[in-house]
């Protein structure tokens, strides 16, 4: 059982453990490079960093701002992960639960080879919902963000405000049941640090029940409102570890399927089809929402996808590299209650 301690102490402990693990891995040459996070230049920001030397280990950082899903850098592999002579290098990935899930799921789609990866598991306690805090602070500049107990303390010129972390966590983190990377027993070399075995995940999906109960018109109005500020920059797509297509459907131009403008129908179609492609693949990292420059919260769509997949196909993504993802698989007895039938 984890003792209830303040956020900061907890993060510090994880951070020092992580550094030790990383140091050990590099020293014993178990990995060639490690990808992790380093301190960002802005409050509530962290930057991905790739290190290959022992002395750089102390640059690694862990706190509640590490929201980028590092699995993104493995598909396709960034240049630093490939040696011109040796070929693919062995990569250590600082992985919270969702990064671990992403890696395992990508392995199930044959995108990465788990033999070439070491998961440095980290028991994550959620990441800050940066945009929500920024919006609530409003038009004041945030200069410093610290943790005190279980509160996030935001400081700026002439103001200081505390936010309870439980409330101002990313929406998906609030529902997260897989905080440490899932254990894949077939690959004993895969894990260092905190990894856990997960039996079936139990999830009630209460959080979206309210939305689901709305009428079509209310839903449509809500979606329109939520997506109205979308600028189609595709940051959500680019940050998503599962979006690795060479040519995304919105970019296809032979033929052009969907409009590229910021007219409402075009925006909705983009998000709808992207959601379609995420079914059974989303690993609930929330990166799509956290990178959105306009602060659109796409998490409720991801939750719905999780729910559909869980209830229909009893599947949770990223737990086992050997299970076929549901959308590439089928069963004769799949439910078909939605089919039109004679009365």
């Amino acid at each position, binding site marked *: 059982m984890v003792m209830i301690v303040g956020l900061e102490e907890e993060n510090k402990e994880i951070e020092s453990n992580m550094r030790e693990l990383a140091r050990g891995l590099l020293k014993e040459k178990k990995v060639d490079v490690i990808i992790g996070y380093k301190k960002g230049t802005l409050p509530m920001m962290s930057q991905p960093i790739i290190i290959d030397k022992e002395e750089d280990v102390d640059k690694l950082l862990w706190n509640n701002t590490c929201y980028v899903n590092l699995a993104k850098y493995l598909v396709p592999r960034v240049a630093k992960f490939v040696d011109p002579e040796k070929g693919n290098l062995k990569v250590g990935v600082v992985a919270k639960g969702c990064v671990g899930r992403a890696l395992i799921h990508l392995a199930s789609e044959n995108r990465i080879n788990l033999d070439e990866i070491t998961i440095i598991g980290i028991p994550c306690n959620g990441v800050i919902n940066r945009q929500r805090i920024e919006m609530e602070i409003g038009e004041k500049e945030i200069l410093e963000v610290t943790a005190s107990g279980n509160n996030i303390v935001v400081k700026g010129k002439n103001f200081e405000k505390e936010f309870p972390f439980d409330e101002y966590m990313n929406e998906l983190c609030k529902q997260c049941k897989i905080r440490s990377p899932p254990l894949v027993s077939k690959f004993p070399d895969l894990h260092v640090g905190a990894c856990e075995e997960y039996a079936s995940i139990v999830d009630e999906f209460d959080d979206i029940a309210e939305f689901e109960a709305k009428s079509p018109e209310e839903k449509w109005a809500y979606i329109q409102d939520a997506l109205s500020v979308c600028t189609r920059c595709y940051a959500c797509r680019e940050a998503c570890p599962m979006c690795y297509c060479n040519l995304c459907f919105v970019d296809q*131009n*032979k033929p*052009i399927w969907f409009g590229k403008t910021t007219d409402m129908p075009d925006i909705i179609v983009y998000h709808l089809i992207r959601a379609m492609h995420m079914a059974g693949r989303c690993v609930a990292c929330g990166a799509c929402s956290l990178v959105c420059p306009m602060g659109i919260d796409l998490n409720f769509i991801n939750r719905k996808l999780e729910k559909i997949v869980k209830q229909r196909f009893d599947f949770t993504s990223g737990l086992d590299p050997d299970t076929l993802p549901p959308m590439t698989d089928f069963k004769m007895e799949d439910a078909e209650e939605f089919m039109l039938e004679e009365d």
Partner: protein
Amino acid sequence: MPNPYIPILTKVKSIISENKVNDIKTIELQFQKEDDYKSFDYIPGQFAEISIIGKGECPIGIASSPTEEGSIKFTIKKMGTVTSMFHRSDIGDTIGVRGPLGNGWPIEELKGKNIVVIGGGFAFSTLRSLILYILDEKHRKDYGNVTVIYGNRDSGEVLYRDVLEEWEKRDDIDVVLTIDREEEGWTRKVGFVAAIVKEVAPSPDNAVAIICGPPIMIRTAVDELVKIGWKDEQILNSLEMRMKCGIGKCGRCNIGSKYVCIDGPVFSLAELKKMPNEY
């Protein structure tokens, strides 16, 4: 100043299928107003943005020469969405033209010089324009010897057969046609363009080489020219790039600080060597 994005409307006057595979067509466009044609004052090597209204726009080199009065021609290969639509168009259809755009071949600087034209495949269109311009009665005396080396994959791909045959009969132009592989009934040269360049060995004295074709052909042909003493300044190239506006505003066709659409598409090899290798 009128809106530069608004095309002039023209009608398709004739359509000629250029090759056996039928994926290259030459479309002749007729301006609807005399003023429109007069304002379309172009030189060989320039291009225009032609569009099927409602389908899109694409930049195509002008294949006709300003000396062929009355209409303009474009040779279009069926490649993407818009070019496929061109292939479906019929005589009498409305087509928008925006242009002329780009710098074109430097016809003034070429005066008094011997000209070696090296072309490959369907990139021959602006070269056709240039040669027709030079061979015109009014201009022929301004230029020196003209040598044309034109290579193709096979005999079915040779464009502009009618004018080529005419040129072969003339004595003020040397035409060397080649295809990659031997073929029954082909009486001209056989071999890659670079090999023919080596064989013909045009002299670099007071001469300019004008090259247009697929990248691999350009590279090998240029190598051969350099070997026999040609200088970078004497070799001219016409570049291709993805373009949208054609007037230096949409941004995508830059190579370093130069825009292909307004500073090009014609660059000398010496200029290209100064630019970053992003083309």
